[in-house]
């Protein structure tokens, strides 16, 4: 998510392909190093929609179709 732009595609690839997975890992780390939070939208077994916050690439479900990066929360005024 970007101010003034909305959704931006950062990287895409197949985690089953080693090279592409490596690229995704690098981009994931880069985003977190920039201070972004990462979340995976998912559907629970009960059918509810919710997000899973992830702090490491390994926490992302292998079948996840996307990870959304957004600026870290800060206490407002």
């Amino acid at each position, binding site marked *: 998510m970007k101010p*003034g732009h909305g959704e931006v595609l950062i990287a895409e690839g197949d985690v089953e392909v080693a090279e592409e997975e490596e690229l995704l890992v690098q981009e994931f780390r880069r985003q977190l190093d920039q201070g972004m939070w990462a979340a995976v939208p998912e559907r629970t077994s009960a059918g509810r929609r919710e997000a899973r916050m992830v702090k490491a690439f390994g926490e992302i479900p292998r079948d996840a179709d996307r990870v959304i990066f957004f*600026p870290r929360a800060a206490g407002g005024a």
Partner: protein
Amino acid sequence: MLLAAITIGVVIVALLWDLVLPSVKEAFERHKARREIIPGASYDPGRERRAEQRARQLLRSCVNEEEWSMYRDLGFIRVWGAMARVPRRGRIGDDPRAGAPYAYLVYPHKPIVAYLPQTSELLNEYCVEFPDETRPYGSARLPDSDDVLAKWMALTGDERRLIAMANMHLPGRQVDPKQVRRDLWRLSQWERERLRRAPRSPGEVPAP
């Protein structure tokens, strides 16, 4: 006589020159500054609107159908709280609200409002922002729907962390309690209407 007049004239011009020169210089500088081309991103009046449209699509793809309809129709999303404690038996004097289901109203670029759905009692305001300090287009502010989605993801993904990071205030500090109560009333009407329109299963008889 002529020489004296010329000398006086030269002196007058020299004195006037000293007086007028700074203001002439200043006017020239101002004129130059006004005409100077300032480098930077050209202003695109449609950019914010397109950003919001993209943000709405992303939000729609993440939340469920009810939440999306709620946001589209009412301008906010209700998120149920997941930290309600189960009240212990036989404890007199405990807060009777402990264990009661609670929820949040998530507005774009406004504090998150916590409340008790059963009584419509407002609990707290949680002031939280998601500023992007890289300011890609000169602003750190996400589009409205992205702000709602960020709150939704943070609340459903790690409610405890978000609430711990937010600045908590009593209701009414930034969001008018009258407006929140009106929104809760609108929400109840909206849900009633939605239930009424929901297709009934075969054999089900509507209540008289």
